[in-house]
């Protein structure tokens, strides 16, 4: 009987055209009832566009969507929910200033009295072990807790298909395991799950089927439990995987960047301040800092770059020179460059041309300013060099930063800092949202810079990236940094525990006797 049941969802020849880009090209696949189906692909492979069409946020230009065997049109998300499709977005659609209950009420199409809704919410939370206080304001919740709201919201509608868009990118390994338990329970009750990810080990652990997209086209539908991570990765990326080339027998020089009990004050944002952080990076070394988003990474980057600076000159030293009291401009002159996580609006100005963006950070190190006037010729020349050396796809130095794709902008920004030959480079999320080719190029550039004798700090949430790229690794949690250890000596379980706040020996030290 099982075989005669129609597919829960079937896509046939879905095509979606944007100006200049074919986001989805004739994509077909089917999801069975109770199946956990992975949608696998690089950033920009068209996964998000595809699910947005299933959820009614966008309409396909061609192709059809079948729901339980019947052709349907999903004009908007409301219609999708009516069919029984729920979705948990990668970027939560939550309202910080509102309570959990209000947030969930907003997601419900039917008008349910607050008291009844609360009872139903508590019911769902109990059933799936998703515990939350419905009257708390979202602003006070952790990222994992926020995701629970989204899941509860989706589950209240008794969905027959739940779409999860990159749900684990913000979770600790332990939280990921909890999420998987919920998803497996749901699937066993007959709910299909469409699980979007580019993390291969998760898909192998969770999913029954995987459809792989590349450049908007379906490459394959396969059984992830049979495939190897490597074979799926090759289907996802296309060409053979490029490994980072690290020079053999690398030796580290003297301590270059020394951070000694660096703390920041709590700022107005919701970010966690940095709390007595100490570490050392030697010449030629790449230190990775792992951690779940929102644990003080932004404050740490700002404290290192000089955007937040205190009075203690010796909290940060480069080659023994105290720079803790200097501002951003002075630190750059001392050889410390930094790349913040947010590309557009922080590391670059979207409305400005690339040449103008070069003036932002390279003006002093590269002599673009004379007598208070900007030498735009020098800025253009340098920008042209960045574009050429880092294969930035742009019309030229006059293109606005905002007109570049995320990956190209990131290549430009990394290039802008690296070509200044900083003796210390601090970068946050160097390859977030960047396609595999560009990510490999950025990684290689970082390795080459280190090989030339610079000290590098990489702050990232991508453990795979950190383990491939870095020599030593530390974990940030609630603004506290664990001791740095060689990457080879630290297991993923240990990293996970540290990310979740279990500090082992160090935690005990912090407690006064």
């Amino acid at each position, binding site marked *: 009987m099982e075989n005669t049941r129609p597919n829960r969802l079937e896509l046939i020849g879905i095509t979606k055209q944007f100006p200049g880009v074919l986001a989805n090209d004739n994509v077909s696949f089917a999801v069975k009832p109770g199946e956990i189906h992975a949608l696998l692909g690089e950033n920009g492979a068209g996964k998000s566009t595809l699910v947005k069409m299933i959820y009614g946020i966008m309409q396909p230009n061609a192709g059809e969507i079948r729901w339980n065997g019947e052709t349907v049109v999903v004009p908007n998300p409301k219609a999708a929910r009516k069919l029984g499709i729920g979705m948990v977005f990668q970027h939560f*659609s939550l309202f910080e*200033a*509102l309570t959990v209950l209000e947030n969930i*009420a907003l997601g419900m199409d039917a008008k349910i009295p607050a008291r009844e809704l609360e009872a139903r919410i508590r019911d769902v939370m109990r059933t799936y072990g998703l515990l939350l206080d419905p009257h708390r304001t979202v602003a006070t919740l952790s990222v994992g807790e926020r995701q629970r709201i989204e899941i509860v919201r989706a589950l209240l509608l008794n969905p027959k298909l739940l779409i999860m868009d990159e749900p684990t990118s913000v979770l600790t390994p332990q939280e990921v395991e909890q999420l998987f338990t919920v998803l497996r329970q749901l699937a066993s009750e007959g709910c299909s799950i469409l699980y979007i990810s580019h993390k291969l080990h998760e898909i192998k652990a969770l999913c029954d089927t995987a459809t792989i997209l590349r450049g908007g086209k379906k490459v394959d539908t396969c059984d992830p439990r049979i495939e190897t991570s490597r074979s799926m990765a090759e289907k996802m990326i296309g060409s053979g995987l490029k490994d980072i080339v690290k020079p053999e027998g690398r030796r580290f020089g003297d301590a270059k960047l020394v951070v000694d009990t660096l703390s920041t004050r709590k700022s107005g944002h919701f970010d966690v301040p940095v709390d007595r952080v100490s570490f050392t990076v030697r010449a030629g070394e790449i230190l990775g800092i792992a951690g779940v988003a929102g644990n003080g990474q932004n404050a740490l980057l700002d404290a290192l770059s000089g955007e937040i600076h205190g009075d203690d000159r010796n909290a940060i030293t480069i080659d023994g020179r105290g720079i803790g009291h200097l501002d951003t401009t002075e630190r750059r002159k001392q050889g410390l460059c930094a790349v913040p996580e947010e590309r557009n609006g922080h590391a670059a100005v979207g409305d400005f041309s690339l040449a103008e963006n070069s003036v932002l950070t390279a003006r002093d190190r590269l002599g673009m300013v004379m007598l208070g006037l900007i030498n735009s010729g020098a800025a253009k020349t340098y920008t042209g060099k960045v574009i050429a050396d880092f294969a930035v796809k742009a019309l030229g130095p006059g293109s606005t930063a905002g007109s570049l794709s995320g990956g190209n902008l990131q290549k430009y920004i990394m290039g802008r800092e690296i070509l200044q030959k900083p003796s210390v480079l601090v970068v946050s999320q160097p390859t977030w949202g960047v396609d595999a080719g560009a990510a490999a190029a950025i990684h290689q550039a970082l390795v080459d810079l280190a090989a030339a004798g610079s000290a590098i700090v990489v702050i990232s949430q991508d453990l795979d990236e950190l383990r491939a790229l870095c020599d030593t690794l530390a974990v940030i949690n609630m603004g506290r940094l664990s001791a740095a250890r060689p990457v080879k000596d630290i297991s993923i379980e240990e990293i996970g525990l540290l990310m979740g706040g279990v500090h082992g020996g160090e935690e005990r030290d912090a407690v006064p006797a």
Partner: protein
Amino acid sequence: MSTELLIAVIITLIGASTPILIAALGELVVEKSGVLNLGVEGMMLIGAVVAFAVTFATGNHWLAILCAAIAGSASSMIFAFLTLTLSANQVATGLALTIFGTGFSALFGQAYTGKPIELFRSVFPAELATHPVWRLVFGHSPLVYFSLIMVVAVWFFLKKTRTGLILRAVGENDLSAHSIGYSVVLTRYAAVAFGGAMAGIAGSCFPLLLTPQWAERLTAGRGWIALALVVFAAWRPFRLLAGAYLFGLVMTIELYTKASGSTGFLPSEFWAALPYIATIVVLVLISLRRSGQSAAPACLGKPFMPAQ
């Protein structure tokens, strides 16, 4: 001070506060939806001239208020179209609306210079308000009762109704509201239209409640004070009420010093400037008290860009 005088002062105070309160309530709803409309002053002037003209022509105050509301709302649609449909800069567009309203009211108001109209007085039978204390309850213009009802209504709408929840959600995070499936633009259009209607009614208070003579720019910056008041009230209707009456007190002092001719040690111009100085002082006080994060809707004044 005799009871009579005290009650007279309170009634003056309430009257002076009413237009600010009504305009600020409208703007509060607009801002809660994430839109900053700096055109309040202009819309009030349009409401004022329309109310004056209708009263002059028909003598019907209710009709005058209705027309003022419609005119205020219609003028707010210029703002809504530019900022919401064409994503123009909200600050600049609001300023343009104020300049427009100033010109519009001056153009159509000049015909009425020197032609008085009837004030819109209490609707209750005079016997009810014979005793001074009863005058405090029954001695006001319907516009005053309207303003008080609207305080409760706006609070109830925002806090207790689903539509109010949606409106707050749109102001907090427009992209999320959009992704859930609410129409950000439509919600904001509705909020701006309401704000325009309230500003129009607030404008009608000037000829109907305060001075039954036409004068250019008779709102004298009260629309801007209403904007400040919304900030002062931290976007809460009942605090808006308290704030508006506080300003009413300041303005009443000005009126009484002018009327009595005794301006104390200070020149009369000081008292005339006092409401504006008080506005600045109030803005300073609230920012001192507020630690770090502001109570402002997160999307206030930012254009909605759905296609990221």
